[in-house]
């Protein structure tokens, strides 16, 4: 276990999140059991008022989770100096089996959280809490995810032992260990960029359909394409875009992009990509809400707005990718 301030901050965040989550989960159970909008009974009024507390709590939970996603990557970066062979965050995440799962859980939590917050916001537009049950069922599904994230993070950090000088015979125990691989293998840059282009084209087509028809099916199609695009974009960053930015044909790290040395270009890439995906994922759900009388107008408007913003951000991402490739002196595709 390391007593690094960033690690302490992360553990503190995860403690706070858990502390906020458990009452929220209990409340979700109460809602599912006792909710009755027709009643004006004291219990119903109390439940309704508690929804305010719970949505505020959860807004904080997801804000804290977002913060902890950033902090986790930063701290992995900062810790790389303490481990043999860990050149950057990738190496630190490779140190034990919990590193990558923690990161993935944090990313999934980010999307689940934005889905919940969007649902909550939509629900607030209906006078009769139309989505209350779905919202709290989703919450109950997110709770184990968050707890798993916290557990995985705790395991990751508690299994970290810094390799400092041990004065017992020779410090060279570390010499036997080959160190942790700081490299991710990628697919061929050419293929990655090709796939990205194809995915972008499909995305444009499905976005056109959603904007034109706005049906559940088209929304679902857009959402699925967006998810695929997200995956392809991540692998393209690792296997191609990063190489252009680092101007080095073998440096694949997806995190060094976030450093000052590379003009923080990672933020330019990841922010639009993540936000666009977060906006695209709730779409099928919102499209379904068009059938609910108290929400149909809002839901109809939201489907258009979200898909438009999402598409715009994806296109922004592509433009940034193209600019990075154009600006780089490295040439990978010409051979």
């Amino acid at each position: 276990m390391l007593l690094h301030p960033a690690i302490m901050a992360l553990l503190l965040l995860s403690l706070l999140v858990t502390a906020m989550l458990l009452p929220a989960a209990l409340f979700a159970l109460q809602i599912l059991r006792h909710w009755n909008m027709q009643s004006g009974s004291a219990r119903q009024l109390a439940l309704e008022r508690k929804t305010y507390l719970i949505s505020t709590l959860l807004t904080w939970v997801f804000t804290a989770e977002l913060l902890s996603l950033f902090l986790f990557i930063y701290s992995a970066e900062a810790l790389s100096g303490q481990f043999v062979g860990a050149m950057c965050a990738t190496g630190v995440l490779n140190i034990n089996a919990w590193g990558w799962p923690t990161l993935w859980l944090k990313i999934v939590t980010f999307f689940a959280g934005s889905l919940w917050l969007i649902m909550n916001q939509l629900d607030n537009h209906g006078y009769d809490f139309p989505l209350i049950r779905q919202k709290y069922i989703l919450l109950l599904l997110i709770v184990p995810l968050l707890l798993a994230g916290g557990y995985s993070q705790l395991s990751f950090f508690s299994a970290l032992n810094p390799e400092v000088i041990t004065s017992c015979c020779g410090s060279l125990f570390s010499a036997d260990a080959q160190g942790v691989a700081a490299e991710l293998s990628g697919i061929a840059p050419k293929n990655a960029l090709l796939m990205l282009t194809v995915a972008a084209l499909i995305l444009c087509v499905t976005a056109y359909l959603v904007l034109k028809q706005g049906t559940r099916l088209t929304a679902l199609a857009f959402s699925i394409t967006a998810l695929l695009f997200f995956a392809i974009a991540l692998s393209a960053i690792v296997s191609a875009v990063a190489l252009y930015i680092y101007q080095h044909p073998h440096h694949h790290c997806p995190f060094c992009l976030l450093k000052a040395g590379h003009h923080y270009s990672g933020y330019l890439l990841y922010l639009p990509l993540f936000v666009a995906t977060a906006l695209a994922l709730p779409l099928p759900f919102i499209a379904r809400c068009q059938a609910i009388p108290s929400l149909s107008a809002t839901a109809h408007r939201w489907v258009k707005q979200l898909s438009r913003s999402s598409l715009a951000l994806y296109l922004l991402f592509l433009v940034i990718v193209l600019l990075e490739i154009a600006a780089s002196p490295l040439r990978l595709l010409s051979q």
Partner: protein
Amino acid sequence: MITLSHVSKIYHQGQPNELHALRDLNLTIDAEGITCLRGASGSGKTTLLSLIGCLSRPTSGRIALQGQIISSFSERFLTDIRRHTFGFIFQRFNLISGLSVIDNVMIPAYPIAPDHDLLYAKATELLHHFGLATRLHSRVEWLSGGESQRVAICRALINDPTIIIADEPTANLDSKLTAGFLSLMAELAKNGKSIILSSHDPGIYDAQEINHLIEMRDGRLLSQT
């Protein structure tokens, strides 16, 4: 305009101090002009006003406002209806001390967020109209009872409500100020506002400005004229 059918309101339900404030009330208020609720204290006037004014929800029964059934609306939407439809004048004025007169008048409009200059101009105009032009930036705790009430009236009017609800508005005023209040209300009624007020003061419910009179006792309707 406002219809209540089979409305009951129970406070502290299931507890030893359970209180049936309204029992199975059926009532239609077609509130042109000034309507007065008359009844002894504890007869359910205040509860009725708070239900009509969307401050609370009935334990059972239905309330319709301008054809819309509001009794099962969530608090968020009730508030939304309330702030666009009702203006409130309370018995104890309920101004927020420490703030200036004009701030107090503008407060109900904050969540609606109109343009600040327009809001400010409107508040100033209202205060001028009610003879408080010199008091704009005084703190409300320095005002006299009559002035406080006029500030409360300005506050009730800031969001252009169609209905004004006044709960025992004259309980803290002398007879001269009471008469003044009634004439202000009559003026507002003439300008198209509906006014619903409650009182157990004969100076109010016997006054000629009152158009409708509703009598209540023990949470039930006694008579309506």
